[in-house]
């Protein structure tokens, strides 16, 4: 790598097993400030599992995580948030029975001087953030359950940017969205990137990744096949990495690469 700065995130030799199956096997990835790293692979390739270790949802069996070059102890989602890691989950992790503002501030509510919830202040801030992200959003009083998939996803994304995340994990952020909303998310990612936020983008959609990511990491059977700058490889080569596990010339081969 030409980049001599300290990586925002370094995950080294991460492994985790579930009931004897190695879901992630000695995987190493890194992320620099203002960079978007796409994480590609089939279902079950281990990309979501690897990223859930970073977000604190799973505890790794072995390996190390460094944030800003220092060892980080991440044992649960609260720890991860303490390091400025925010996650937008594939399964739209919002609390269904409370409204958008309550979701945005869940776990970090604004309180009044006497410690009670300041709903008006939260709703006001929510209107501001949602207005930036999705100006058509109007249904602030209703439980999130009543919203469409796209609206729910905007709530989840708003939630992440509201708290000035430094490291953003997006797990299939556009899977439930229409084309227009997908484009909005794309613009948003570019905006966040220019703010110096590092983003892990997990996706099935190779086109999305080529449009948005600076680098990509391909995983297969829990191992890293290879890492490449999006400018150094073609879509066909990346498809080859995903399907056959072959690292092309433009990529740095990982432990999961098939030898020719």
């Amino acid at each position, binding site marked *: 790598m030409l980049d001599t700065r300290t990586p925002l995130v370094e995950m080294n030799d991460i492994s985790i097993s579930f009931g004897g199956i190695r879901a992630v096997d000695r995987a190493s990835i890194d992320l620099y400030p203002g960079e978007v790293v796409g994480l590609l692979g089939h279902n079950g390739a281990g990309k979501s599992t690897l990223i859930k270790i970073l977000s604190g949802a799973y505890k790794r069996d072995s390996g190390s995580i460094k944030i800003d070059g220092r060892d980080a102890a991440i044992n649960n*989602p609260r720890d991860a948030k303490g390091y400025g890691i925010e996650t937008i*989950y594939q399964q739209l992790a919002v*609390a*269904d*029975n*409370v409204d958008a503002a309550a979701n945005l501030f869940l776990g970090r509510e604004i309180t009044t001087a006497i410690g009670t*919830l300041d709903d*008006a202040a939260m*709703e006001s801030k929510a209107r501001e953030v949602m207005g930036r992200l999705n100006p058509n959003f109007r249904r602030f009083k209703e439980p*999130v359950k009543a919203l469409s998939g796209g609206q729910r996803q905007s709530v989840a994304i708003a939630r992440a940017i509201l708290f000035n995340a430094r490291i953003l994990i997006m797990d299939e952020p556009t899977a439930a969205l229409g084309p227009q909303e997908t484009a909005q998310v794309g613009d948003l990612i570019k905006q966040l990137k220019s703010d110096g936020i590092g983003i892990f983008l997990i996706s099935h959609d190779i086109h999305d990744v080529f449009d948005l990511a600076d680098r990509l990491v391909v995983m297969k059977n829990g191992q890293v096949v290879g890492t490449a700058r999006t400018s150094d490889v073609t879509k066909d080569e990346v498809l080859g990495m995903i399907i056959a596990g072959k690292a092309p010339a433009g990529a740095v081969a990982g432990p999961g690469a098939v030898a020719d």
Partner: protein
Amino acid sequence: MADQHATLAAAHPSRFAQNPLQRFLIATELDTRLLGMVGALAIIWVGFHILSGGLFLTPRNLWNLSVQTASVAVMVTGMVLVIVTRNIDLSVGSILGLVGMVMGVMQTDILPVQMGLGFGHPLIWALSLGAGLAVGVGIGALQGSIIAYLKVPAFIVTLGGYLVWRGAAWWVTMGRTVAPMDPTFQLMGGGPSGSIGAFWSWVVAIVACAAIVLGLYFGRRQRLRFNFPLRPIWAEVSLAVIGCGLAIGAVWVANAYPWPRRIAEAFAEANGIAVPDGGLFISHGIAIPVLIALGVGVVMTFISTRTRFGRYVFAMGGNPEAAELAGINTRWVTVKIFMLMGALCAIAAAISSARLNAATNALGTLDELYVIAAAVIGGTSLAGGVGTIAGALLGALVMQSLQSGMVLMGLDSPLQSIVVGIVLVFAVWLDTLYRRNKN
């Protein structure tokens, strides 16, 4: 753009409603489901009044109804939070029994005899209640920890608790009934001396009216501050009038129920008051257990809507994984819910045992079912995430109204159970229809 957004947001949705009833409902932002329950309660009351030949809607019966509801009403406020998080507590009746027994033994034996305070010591009621609360919270903490940390389903843990605590209540005195209770403690059970009288009842009404008006005023100011849509002034005024009217009406009814003639005469004699010709009219006023239940209702509404803890309870009920991923310590919240439930059982136990003037090992039998039924009739969804304290309190009142109405009608006991069972199922079916249509 920002200005346009603001003006759009500031228009209250009631402007767009056509029919006057609809406009009233939207403008006042009243919960239509809650209104439906009030309507159902009104039908039940009027129906029983006619069927019982004019016995139901009398100050005496309504006052008794309020006292009879108090114990279940206190517990149902906690059951809402338990059910909202997709748990259940089958042990509340047994906890009530055990705690009642512990408080009984405290005030009849341990404090006055073994610790030498003597009977009638002014601290006895407080220390007994404190001990009861400690036992209740402790039981809740134990059950909650097993549910949250050992991952045993709440149904099983509290089913076990149902047997354990009932057995423990028996074991405390080997089945002996403990009586009589401390005179101060007895005030928590109601009765002529356990009521606050006409003057203080009016004070409560005035405080309630002031709270309603201030609440509306501050709510409006808060909305103005953030430029949110405001309710029309006429809607605010109608809310204030309805709220204050209910408070004043309830106090008027409680004050219209006089002390029984003999007790009033004895009181007059003891205090040297001359008894007038028509007999002495001393108002009961609001009963202390009812005051306790109302206080618990206000506090629990505050906890569930205005604190982080309450917010987490509802977030967990909708999607436990999302709540966990948002960084909420869901296990600790679960333990706290059950501790709160235990404390409420202790308060209910104080009310029940003081009313009975005795602690028996059967105290609170079947209460768990009435509490759960009241919560469910009150709109708490067993699927989790949905429920209000006010609705559950109304549910408790509906249950108790059915019970006492049927007693007034002279309906046989087995028939009473059959009717209550059918009403429960019917009410939940209606609720299911309502929710389906709403979506």
